[in-house]
């Protein structure tokens, strides 16, 4: 039985090239020239589902559907070939995360106006000019009438989205929230980020974050339990806030994008996580993930909790997004569903840690 304030992961969905299940996110980089084909959104949601939607929205809809199915929140409707919700739509919120999703619409539209005029624009682009279009379409597709949030919060955005989903549940706004992290690549994004397009993610990941009691009530299986979350200045500070000194070590560390261990030349201090804790960078295989990163990491952590946790450390996964060059670093602990744990209040473990630092 779970504590009343606990939130769990009760569903995972993916729309990624060459990875159908969370454990497939644990693999390393592709061999050069062996990159899988781009994810085929039509195979999942049908061609009709694409009309007037940008690529990021299409990918998000694919991951969202996969997660809702995994959580048994949608089921085939009797007598039709469609699916419908198994719970009322106003008990489900949406928290999407993407930094780059509609950059192409904004920039290409502005350029088209300069080359011609606003008369030449397609009115069908209008929704895509608004930065929350991804969260909107996910809600419309499935009739999700709870709060509808869209995080565009830089490198930490995906983990922040998971945090806000848990906050919506903790505050009683909804019983569950669908989190979707998505990014895509195109000429506009590659140019503005000054990165090669083939080093950027084209995909989405989704999670259902649900109050433990509400998951229990409908007999849903919890794949992971959310631990504390922090958003701090710098990687070391964030990790310290989540893992008090003398506490148990995590069983795995999902590192920030392209994390490099301190070397003798660069390091004044040791790595923030003990060296024998296994590291995993999900962006090695799937590309730089920006606003999708945290969600992708959580999905990978669910894969790790399901396959490899026995006998390693505490069985907790430490997840961090953002590094010392970013405005902040976000961190989250995910635990296996069977691990005993204290109630995760919104104040989390931090007040205790602060108190210790003060004494």
């Amino acid at each position: 039985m779970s504590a009343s304030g606990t939130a769990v992961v009760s569903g995972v969905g993916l729309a990624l090239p060459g990875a159908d299940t969370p454990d497939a996110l644990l693999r390393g980089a592709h061999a050069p020239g062996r990159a899988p084909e781009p994810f085929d959104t039509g195979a999942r949601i049908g061609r009709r589902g694409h009309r007037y939607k940008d690529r990021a929205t299409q990918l998000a809809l694919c991951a969202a559907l996969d997660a809702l199915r995994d959580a048994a929140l949608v089921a085939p409707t009797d007598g039709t070939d469609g699916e419908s919700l198994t719970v009322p739509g106003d008990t489900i919120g949406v928290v999407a995360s993407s930094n780059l999703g509609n950059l192409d619409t904004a920039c290409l539209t502005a350029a088209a106006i300069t080359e011609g005029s606003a008369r030449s624009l397609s009115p069908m682009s209008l929704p895509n000019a608004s930065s929350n279009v991804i969260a909107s379409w996910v809600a419309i597709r499935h009739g999700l009438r709870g709060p509808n949030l869209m995080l565009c919060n830089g490198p930490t955005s995906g983990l922040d989205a998971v945090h806000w989903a848990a906050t919506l549940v903790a505050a009683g706004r909804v019983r569950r929230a669908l989190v979707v992290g998505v990014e895509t690549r195109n000429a506009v994004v590659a140019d503005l980020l000054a990165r090669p397009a083939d080093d950027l993610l084209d995909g989405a990941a989704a999670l259902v974050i649900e109050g433990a009691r509400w998951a229990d009530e409908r007999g849903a299986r919890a794949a992971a339990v959310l631990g504390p979350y922090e958003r701090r200045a710098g990687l070391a500070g964030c990790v310290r806030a989540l893992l008090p000194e003398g506490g148990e070590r995590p069983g795995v560390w999902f590192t920030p994008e392209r994390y490099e261990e301190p070397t003798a030349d660069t390091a004044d201090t040791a790595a923030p996580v003990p060296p024998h804790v296994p590291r995993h960078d999900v962006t090695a295989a799937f590309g730089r993930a920006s606003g999708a990163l945290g969600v992708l990491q959580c999905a990978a952590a669910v894969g790790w909790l399901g396959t490899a946790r026995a006998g390693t450390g505490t069985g907790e996964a430490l997840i961090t997004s953002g590094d010392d060059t970013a405005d902040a670093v976000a961190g989250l602990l995910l635990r296996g569903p069977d691990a005993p744990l204290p109630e995760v209040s919104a104040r989390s473990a931090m007040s205790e840690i602060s108190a210790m630092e003060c004494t």
Partner: protein
Amino acid sequence: MSQLVTGAGAVVSVGEGVDEVFSALCAGTSGLGELRGFAPDRYRGRHAYEIDDRPGPGADVPGRATAWLLRAVGEAARQAGLGEDLSGVPVLVGTGLRELRSAELAWRDGTAFDTRARLHFGTALRERFGAVRTHTFAGACSASLYALALGSDLLATGAEDTVIVAGVDTVTESMYGLLDRVNAEPPDRVRPFDRERRGVLMGDGAAAVVLRREESGARSGALGRLRAVSMNCDARHVTAPDAQGIVRAVYEAQQRAGVTPGDIDLVLLHGTGTQLNDSAEATAIAEVFGPEVTTPLMTAIKSMTGHTSGSSGLVSLIVALKSLASGRIPPTLGLIDPLPEAAAFRFVREPSPADVAGLRFAQIDAFGFGGVNAVAIVERAGT
């Protein structure tokens, strides 16, 4: 548990600073102007409600929205006595369009802009205030009231004692152009709830409030009390509003606040001047308020600020708090012949005489693309 607004800041086309903005709006001042930052011959419409701070006509620069946000947050924090160090305070920013205008300039003109670090507002908030618990939410035109709801939840669950909530938007060329494309006839101004309304024109704006948990015996001097904020999603259409979604949001806000329609003295309507919004909003308000629809005074300040998008809900909320405190209410400029659904509404139409006595509760509406609705209920300070 109740929550106090202990500081506020605002920057819009009609002025800078809460007192200046409120005075200008009460006097019926419009921020309408000819397009300043875009080439006007590319559009049928020629007007917007812009903050006039560009280096010259037609010359646009990146980072304007960020600069207004920092000024609004600074004003609110100062008034609340938080000072310049916000390292321990969560800052939640609601926005429709982030710094997408800067990205447009970077892509099209090669203007220097760090897309990785400055499309969201956390980097600038850390540089200026040392803030690290910062969150940029894209929530279209209800973004700042959505952020207010989330901030309010952080206080209600006991996670925080103080949060800063802000909203900001500047006009992007892509959004201005696409709205220009879909308007049947280009509007020359925003005329909320008038039968002759022709659509929306966008405006620049930023607003911020400091929200604190109310402790018994704590010092007074707050601007007012936040009673509740609702948030939901129509889940119906990606741009068109749905009256039933709005009805649910208004009911929920009043229920959370423990008030009924007859308690509401003032409504700051969303009122964008589009055919669809004003009709859906008026229908929803009439349905929820029923026979009490003639009780509250009503106004729509987008008639003077234009549609300040993600910041608009919080700009309206600050105006509502000032109106409750002062008894002065800004008019709905240009409203001559209300649409039939709003025929019974008590609109404020003239620059207001001072001292409408006894105002206590105000309702603030904000609705956005994607069917995202948020409604706040505030109460006069000292009650």
